[in-house]
């Protein structure tokens, strides 16, 4: 037996998890099988041990996710004995509720919002825990820990509920929901260092591997699964790459890397001169791309 010293960010996240469980009727953890949501799962385990995590997982599947992540997602939920709810963007496309983008930069990233809002309504979720971090993007840097959304999922960015000390007010009206961000104050490096320290398993695509790719606009795109639109003159080559962020395949680029172990990944992140979202084409659409998506109900 020894003395417990504080890890500020970890204790803060555990505190937030417990507030969610105590303040809401039907919380859900948004789990994609990506590194940030895997970290959330570990923090939730820590918050409630020896009890089970007291909320289900929800994944909004664009149908364009990396197969490695999906396999990992299913396995982790099963190991923990947590209910995993999957809702598919494809269903909304088939029903004609949303229209698939076309062309060179087509992505299903934007379409996730509609499916997420549908799932919130279907299950009556009043709190959705997500792995967004403030260091990712400048509109996210403005986000509260408990972010109140209207029944249309809208973020009222100019009139956010004040958050004092670590007092979290989760009181809402029927139909509203709260987006909760327990790792708001973590940086990308914090997440990776934590994964290393805790020896948390993550999907293989985060580590360097050989992959068929093609180059466009100085970015490396996966050519392995026919999901990313590729023009005929865009030549496929094999490269050693890894993914720093794992979202929809159509908007997530790979980075050249030989980091095959977690220690090497942490080291690579520490020395990196490009931000994590530099590999996300969805943020490059305009100066205010993220803010606009959030106003419409995106994470």
């Amino acid at each position, binding site marked *: *037996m*020894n*003395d*417990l*010293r*504080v890890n*500020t*960010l*970890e*204790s*803060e996240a*555990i*505190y937030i998890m*417990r*507030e969610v*469980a*105590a303040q809401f009727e039907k919380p859900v953890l948004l789990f994609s099988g990506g590194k940030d949501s895997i970290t959330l799962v570990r923090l939730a*385990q*820590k*918050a*409630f*041990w*020896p*009890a*089970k995590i007291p909320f289900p997982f929800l994944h909004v599947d664009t149908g364009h996710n990396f197969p490695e992540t999906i396999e990992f997602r299913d396995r982790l939920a099963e190991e923990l004995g947590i209910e995993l709810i999957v809702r598919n963007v494809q269903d909304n496309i088939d029903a004609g509720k949303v229209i698939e983008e076309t062309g060179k930069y087509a992505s299903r990233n934007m379409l996730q919002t509609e499916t997420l809002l549908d799932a919130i309504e279907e299950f009556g979720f009043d709190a959705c825990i997500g792995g967004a971090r*403030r*260091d990712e*993007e*400048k*509109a*996210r*840097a*403005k986000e509260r820990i408990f972010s109140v959304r209207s029944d249309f999922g809208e973020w009222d*960015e*100019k009139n*956010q*509920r*004040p*958050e*004092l*000390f*670590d*007092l979290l*007010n989760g*009181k*809402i*009206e029927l139909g509203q929901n709260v987006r909760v961000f327990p790792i*708001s*104050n973590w*940086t990308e*490096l*914090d997440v990776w260092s934590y994964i290393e320290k805790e020896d948390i398993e993550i999907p293989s695509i985060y580590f360097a591997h050989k992959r068929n790719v093609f180059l466009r606009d100085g970015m490396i795109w996966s050519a392995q699964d026919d999901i990313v639109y590729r023009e005929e003159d865009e030549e496929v080559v094999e490269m050693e790459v890894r993914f720093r962020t794992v979202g929809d395949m159509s908007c997530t680029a790979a980075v050249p890397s030989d980091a095959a172990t977690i220690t090497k990944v942490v080291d690579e992140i520490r020395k*990196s*001169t*490009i*931000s994590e979202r*530099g590999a996300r084409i969805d943020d490059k659409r305009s*100066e*205010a791309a993220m*803010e606009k998506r959030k106003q419409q109900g995106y994470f």
Partner: protein
Amino acid sequence: MEVLKIATAGSVDDGKSTLIGRILYDTRSLTDDKLEAIERTSKQKGFDYLDFSLATDGLVAEREQGITIDVAHIYFSTAKKSYIIADTPGHVEYTRNMVTGASTSQAAIILVDARNGVIEQTYRHFFINNLLKVKDIIVAVNKMDLVDFAQEKFDAIKTEISELATRAGSKQNITYIPVSALNGDNVVDASSNTPWYNGQTLLAHLEGLEAQDVYEESVARLPVQTVIRPKTDEFHDFRGYAGKLYGGSLAVGDEVTVLPSKTASKVKDIYFFDKKYQEAARGTSINVTLENDINISRGDIIVKSSELPKEAKQIDTKICWMDANNLVVGKKYLIQQGANVIAAKVAGIDSVIATDFSGETPATELKLNEIGNVSLKLAKTLFYDTFEENKTTGSFILIDPQTNNTSGVGFIQ
């Protein structure tokens, strides 16, 4: 790694964004793609300098108006520690957002334009950081390059703020640093333009601050967030009281009292995840079991029996009002203190306190962004410390039960 949270206060005109940008730039914390985006937009707008506010003002409305509306969080780290900057607005109409940013910070940087000296906004920033008892205040006298690095300009500001601190009864550590954010003097690198200044650069000073949390000097308070009852075969009778420890420390065997029931017991085990610990330090989110089987629920507070807090059904508070609907006598609110929520009624409004230290005036209501002396009548007995003694048990938010809004923040006197 240690984490130090710093609030910055000042307007765009004071060069606040430039200062933050300079810190990020000189500590090589801006990645190439973010820097390129700033270069691109600065050029497009026809500036011949890098407009760092583009990195901090994250909302369209902020960039349009050239002002900071809400708190932005900016992260950087050195070999020594991780920093979180809560970049807060300076305008009076966004005082509530400034309070939000300052409430979680251990240090504050107040920017003063060397040409203009101490202005109304400086008073407000100082007032709020004093109200929130932010431990370390750094007065960065900026734009020294525009006053030819004149020592007398710097000294005049220093004297004025020192007098203000004395008048306010401030117990904070106040440090004055002459800087030019635009050119980088005394921000990360020491300047040759200020030979009369023997102090540290801004970053060197921050590196030297102890990154201890705000509850450091208080006694142990453990507000129970949730009761953990797994009801599994292995942990059939397990009843853990989960919460974050604010102040002091808690050890196995400590004699404790549970409030409000005032039931006594002893700490049996302290868990963090699946490991047991002998003693937990402040700031840790622990799960505690007690020797006796007693009735404890969310909102109760576990304290050491030798360190009982005060109790009352009516309290005198300072309140910073954050709602467009005014605070009026007789109105009912919910107050949330830690995990404890109880009903409260405004018993009386004594006065509004001017944030420029010009004094208090009698009032019958508190308007948005005003700070006043208010007494509250409570539906149940509240166990509390003064804000001076413990920031968690000495503060609360007021929630309007009709709108669910966080309408104000209170500091118990």
